[in-house]
């Protein structure tokens, strides 16, 4: 989230699209209801299903899953055609006026530089035109045919309301109502908050879905504003934290990158990543990339990371492919190229696409280790559970460990929520049986391996034996010790900006104090400030909220630098005055930036300097156009899902996202609309949380059994009645569930053809208190977003028919 949960109460319009906030985030959704009740806000819901969010919406618009880009491009077109944009904002705070290099082109759904066999682009033509001064060329008048705004207009010209209706199945009148309502926030005193979640990310063009709304929000001048912003509602309690901390194949904590093979050494690596401003005087955190990186190396390998050995640059693995994400991981496993998997609090068997493939992948591994507070299907993938898990144990040669771990009530530590708050929690009880904290388990594994290497030696042991592990009790580092590492500390005395010297061994106050000379160590620069000499900032519980802004600045710690609303400089006009008094966050008082939140800007940088407010970007402004950042194009483009009930209307040649990676076997596993006529989608219900709450009696009572949702029309066609058993199958598998026949799903009229939606919630399995059931991953295709490899769980094809109960349910 660029803003925070409470901030939503300031919104004048709230759009929930690509998500179902009321069901997935009920307690955060309260702030939407608050905005409606006390800020007279209007709630728009765009969704294939009339969800529980829609039940309290002012305006509901149906849409076929996987067509969000067409819809939002249509909105952007409406805004530009009807001059409903916040002009000064767009001019000053977006790259609308930037001029793009000669040679950029877009035709028949492909951008310039596409290579069919690589399924990838050569992005050189997607850059800005560079001036002699080494900065990007800008045409303030926005007359230049190649300036971003004009390219955008051209790019989205095809998305007329009629085209939107043909592609999305959203009735034209409703679509226009949505446009009008959104357009109403183009004024400086009205803002729209966009709430989205996996309804946008779980597509083969997930990132571009989000980009589309970013473009709309930028045109409306809603980013960095109170009650505005892009609110990514993260799915899990600490998924924000795990991403921040880089628990991914290609990341180092704080969104630094794992080097790739071509990065020969430290200098080379840094030179490719060091920030180069695209506009004169532009500032950014990334200017300090080297400081963050060196401090990270120091915290990892302490005295073993020295200037001489390039800060132990070689201790880090180098990537030969963009990512070793889960899709690749299990593809390799299926090919028998993986030896084992260590799985911490995760249930991949019932999560990753194509259950059959997952079972095969697990069966081909030598061992798997599952660490979890709950019994998971994954840990028992080899156990026969009738039709729910029909395997022959004797044929599965995988060695399996199930290690019991503590859960939240039995340990302390911090979680990072969607608002980027690091909240500390405390231990309430001893764990049952022999459960151990994950920290102790990981430590034990590390210490044992280290001991083995010390004793017997082996492949490149240095990074292991030299790993910085000086905890009071090496067997069990305390969360406090680890938090202190994340915050960072001085290794040698340093002098900070104010000139004061800080002795060695002190906690740093924030990332501003980090150095690239090895005198500081820091696990995650964006977390710096969470555990200073003042103590555990994450444990702060002062909920006072000056100005009733919904900011509560002294509640725990928010990264970066306790800033609650990102890009908040954009809440003021170029002169530093708030666009709207009512929505004031910060302002320039002549000497410095002051207000209710920590300024996302140089505190003393005067407005006259014209430093862009989006200081995470090299341009310093919001990007309507992205240079090399996105793998699948500088602008979002409508592509159909890989399994789609219809062809791509504007670009008939396109099948799926041309830049998405898809493995051969998985390509062969795609079905056609001839065999599988219905558009399926998967989602959460508010009564459950993934497959965790099926272990909880009360939640089992509230939603006991798997079902699929279909329209009355489809039910009639198929002779299915409420509560009947139905079989749903795709090219990859088949499952049984109860039928919920509802008015809340209606056939969508797309290009004159009725598209039936089949909805599958995802909360059941063969262990726990709920009735036995399947997970939609039995049916889903293995293809991910071109940029993040997030699987396409939200749009694929199935067929459906009435059937008999599973054996264990035969009366």
């Amino acid at each position, binding site marked *: 989230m660029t803003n925070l949960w409470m901030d939503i109460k300031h919104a004048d319009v709230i759009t929930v699209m690509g998500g179902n906030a009321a069901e997935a985030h009920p307690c955060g959704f309260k702030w939407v209801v608050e905005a409606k009740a006390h800020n007279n806000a209007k709630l728009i819901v765009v969704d294939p299903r009339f969800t529980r969010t829609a039940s309290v919406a002012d305006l509901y618009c149906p849409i076929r899953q996987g067509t969000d880009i067409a819809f939002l491009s249509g909105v952007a077109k409406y805004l530009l055609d009807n001059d409903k944009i916040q002009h000064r904002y767009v001019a000053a705070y977006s790259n609308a006026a930037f001029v793009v290099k000669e040679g950029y082109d877009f035709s028949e759904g492909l951008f310039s530089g596409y290579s069919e066999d690589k399924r990838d682009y050569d992005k050189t033509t997607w850059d800005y035109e560079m001036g002699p001064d080494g900065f990007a060329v800008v045409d303030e008048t926005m007359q230049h045919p190649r300036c971003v705004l004009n390219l955008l207009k051209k790019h989205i010209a095809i998305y007329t309301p009629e085209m939107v209706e043909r592609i999305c199945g959203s009735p034209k009148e409703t679509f226009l109502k949505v446009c009008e309502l959104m357009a109403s926030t183009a004024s400086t005193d009205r803002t729209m908050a966009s709430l989205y979640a996996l309804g946008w990310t779980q597509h083969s063009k997930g990132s571009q879905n989000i980009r589309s709304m970013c473009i709309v929000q930028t045109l409306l001048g809603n980013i960095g504003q109170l009650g505005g912003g892009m609110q990514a509602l993260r799915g899990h309690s600490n998924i*924000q934290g795990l991403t921040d901390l880089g628990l991914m194949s290609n990341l180092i904590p704080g969104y630094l990158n794992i080097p790739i093979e071509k990065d020969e050494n430290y200098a080379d690596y840094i030179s490719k990543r060091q920030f180069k401003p695209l506009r004169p005087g532009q500032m950014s955190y990334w200017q300090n990339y080297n400081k963050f990186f060196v401090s990270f190396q120091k915290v990892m390998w302490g005295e073993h990371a020295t200037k001489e050995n390039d800060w132990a640059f070689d201790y880090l693995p180098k990537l030969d492919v963009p990512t070793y994400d889960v899709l*690749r991981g299990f593809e390799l496993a299926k090919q028998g190229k993986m030896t084992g998997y260590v799985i911490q609090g995760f249930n991949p068997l019932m999560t990753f696409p194509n259950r059959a493939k997952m079972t095969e992948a697990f069966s081909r591994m*030598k061992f798997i280790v599952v660490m979890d507070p709950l019994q998971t299907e994954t840990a028992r993938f080899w156990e026969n559970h009738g039709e729910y898990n029909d395997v022959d144990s004797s044929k599965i040669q995988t060695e399996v460990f*199930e290690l019991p771990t503590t859960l939240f*009530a039995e340990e302390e530590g911090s979680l990072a929520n969607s608002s980027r708050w690091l909240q500390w929690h405390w231990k309430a009880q001893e764990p049952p049986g022999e459960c151990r904290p994950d920290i102790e388990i990981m430590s034990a594994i590390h210490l044992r391996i280290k001991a083995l290497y010390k004793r017997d030696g082996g492949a490149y042991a240095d990074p292991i034996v030299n790993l910085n592990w000086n905890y009071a009790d090496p067997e069990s580092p305390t969360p406090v010790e*680890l938090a202190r590492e994340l915050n960072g500390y001085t290794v040698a005395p340093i002098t900070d900006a104010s000139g004061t010297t800080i002795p060695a061994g002190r906690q740093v106050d924030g990332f501003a104090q980090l150095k690239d000379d090895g005198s500081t160590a820091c696990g995650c620069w964006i977390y710096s400030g969470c555990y200073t000499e003042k103590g555990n900032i994450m444990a702060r519980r002062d*909920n006072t909220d000056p100005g009733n802004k*919904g900011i509560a600045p002294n509640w725990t710690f928010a990264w970066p630098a306790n800033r609650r609303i990102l890009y908040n400089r954009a809440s003021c006009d170029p002169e530093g005055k708030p666009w709207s008094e009512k929505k004031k966050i910060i302002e320039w008082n002549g000497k410095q930036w002051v207000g209710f939140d920590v300024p996302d800007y140089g505190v003393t940088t005067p407005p006259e300097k014209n430093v862009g407010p989006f200081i995470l970007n090299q341009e310093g402004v919001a990007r309507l156009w992205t240079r090399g950042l996105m793998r699948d194009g500088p602008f979002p483009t409508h592509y159909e899902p890989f399994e789609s009930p219809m062809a791509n209307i504007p670009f008939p040649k396109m099948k799926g996202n041309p830049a998405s990676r898809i493995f051969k076997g998985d390509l062969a596993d795609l079905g056609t609309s001839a065999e599988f006529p219905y558009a399926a989608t998967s989602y959460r219900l508010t009564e459950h949380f993934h497959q965790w709450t099926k272990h909880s009696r009360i939640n089992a009572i509230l939603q006991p059994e798997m079902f699929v949702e279909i329209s009355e029309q489809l039910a009639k066609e198929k002779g299915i009645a409420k509560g009947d058993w139905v079989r749903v199958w795709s090219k990859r598998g088949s499952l049984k569930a109860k039928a919920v026949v509802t008015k809340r799903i209606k056939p969508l009229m797309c290009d004159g053809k009725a598209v039936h939606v089949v909805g599958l919630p995802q909360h059941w399995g063969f262990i726990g208190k709920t009735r036995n059931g399947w997970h939609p991953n039995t049916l889903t295709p293995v293809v991910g977003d071109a940029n993040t490899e997030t699987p396409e769980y939200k749009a694929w094809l199935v067929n459906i028919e009435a059937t008999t109960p599973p054996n264990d349910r035969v009366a």
Partner: protein
Amino acid sequence: MNVQVSRRGLLKGIGVGLAGGSLGALGFGALEPAMAAAVRPFKLAQMKETRNTCPYCSVACGVILYSLGDNSKNSKSAVMHVEGDPDHPVNRGTLCPKGSSLLDFITSETRTKYPMHREPGSSEFKRVSWDFALDRIAMLLKEDRDKNFIAKNGDLTVNRWTTVGFLGASATSSETAWCTYKVVRSMGALTFDNQARV
């Protein structure tokens, strides 16, 4: 902070209750036999309160865990009730159907309690000791790392290990995640991911 206030409120409640009690003792209570039986005693009066965060979605609602035992040596604490934290700026004491039933998650019958081990081809889990499990896991990891670690690709130093995958848990604390990160990366592992996508 309002929780203090609310606690005071609670104490006041108890005060009133005790007053009522003594009235009862004086015989006034006898006039209303039904009342005494009707209202269940407020069960949280003396329970230990622990601040925590709901482990489910990313709203990260504040919760208060009410547990048996006051940390005195001879009482084993056990969570008896979970309720929203009224101080928390986001949830302000509210909880969703999942948060409201966290107690059943904590006390779930299908929680793992002991290290279990399944041998190749076997159709059942067997309980094993922690030492057995950890020694064997460390051995398996090292064995494969030594076998499949790639130090160089041509003349490029790559120092990577990709044949054992690691998955991080989205509900573990950042401190746990950091510990995991250190352990995994120090081995040069690259097949490393988390739940961000699901």
